[in-house]
């Protein structure tokens, strides 16, 4: 009997590639790749709002052949003064991008935060075990 070969495609995407896209385009980029069967590894982390948008958009695209996604991210942990400064920096970035968006009429661009994100089709990724500073993924073809 001939054994069929199972293939797994993993796309490693630099944060630069996603930084250049605005909110909805970023989500579409991710979901188009995942819906095509790729596992995406990004060297950056989406904002909490974008993560929620990703879940919402995924739900809109669920069908018989695409049950959804599995996603896991590891963020850089900042505490104390570092956290305070990061919050200030985020506020400044949001304000400047909103002003820029107001002037140009284009949706604001936000940069990905430091960290790593894995997003893949739920059909392939069976389990993700997350720890505070690591995660392991079980995929099954």
């Amino acid at each position, binding site marked *: 009997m001939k054994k069929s070969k199972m293939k797994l495609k993993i796309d490693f995407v630099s944060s630069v590639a996603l930084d250049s896209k605005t909110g909805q385009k970023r989500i579409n980029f991710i979901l188009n790749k995942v819906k095509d069967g790729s596992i995406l590894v990004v060297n950056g982390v989406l904002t*909490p709002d974008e993560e929620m948008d990703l*879940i919402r958009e995924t739900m*809109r695209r669920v069908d*018989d052949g695409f*049950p959804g996604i599995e*996603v896991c*991210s590891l963020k850089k942990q900042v505490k104390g003064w570092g956290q305070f400064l990061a919050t200030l920096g985020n506020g400044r970035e949001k304000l400047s991008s909103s002003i820029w968006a107001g002037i140009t009429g284009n949706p604001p661009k936000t940069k990905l935060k430091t960290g790593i994100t894995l997003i893949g089709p739920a059909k392939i990724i069976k389990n993700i*075990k*997350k*720890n505070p500073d690591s995660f392991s993924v079980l995929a099954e073809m």
Partner: protein
Amino acid sequence: MVFGRLVNWIRNFFRLRQDISLGIYGCTNVGKTTLANRICMDWTGEEMGKVSRIPHETRLVQKKEKVLIESNGKKININILDMPGIATKVDYRKFLKYKIKKRAAKKRAREATKGVVEAIKWLNHVDTVLAVMDATKDPLTQVNITLLGNLEAKGIPVILVANKVDLRRAKPQNIKEAFPQYPLVEISALRGKNINNLYEAVIKHSRKAK
């Protein structure tokens, strides 16, 4: 976000609103509707929704308005919003295991995905959130992390609810360790264990008790 916080603060300061919207959020099958039923039974004598072991039983946002709760002499009027469970995947094949027919399973899956979208939309309309987690399971799921991060960014007060602590394998300390920055109440919504602690926490953290 900053503007939203400012508006909330002004509303709270001048007490422009008499009651608060309490959203019950979490993954599927963590006991959100059991908790909503418990709160409603305790204060109104009526149940709120149907409970089932099949995931995504609640597929529409359930509302119960003007429920007056009281703890330590303080009172607060709450509008309870029992949300569909948030998930990153909905596979109709999972429902077939519960002896649901294929057509019905597909319909349930379609409704479930709409329910998740609806629950996410409501995040902009709640004043306080009970983030319910199953104490017998690993709390470090991406849904929990995303939900809490989102609420924090919106400045919405969150109370973590470690549910099902009546079960032997429950480890509520795992939730405390995973999310130490949030107030945590350990309860059994089914048995009513420690439920008064929850009412106390809702009044304390909702900042609108009279």
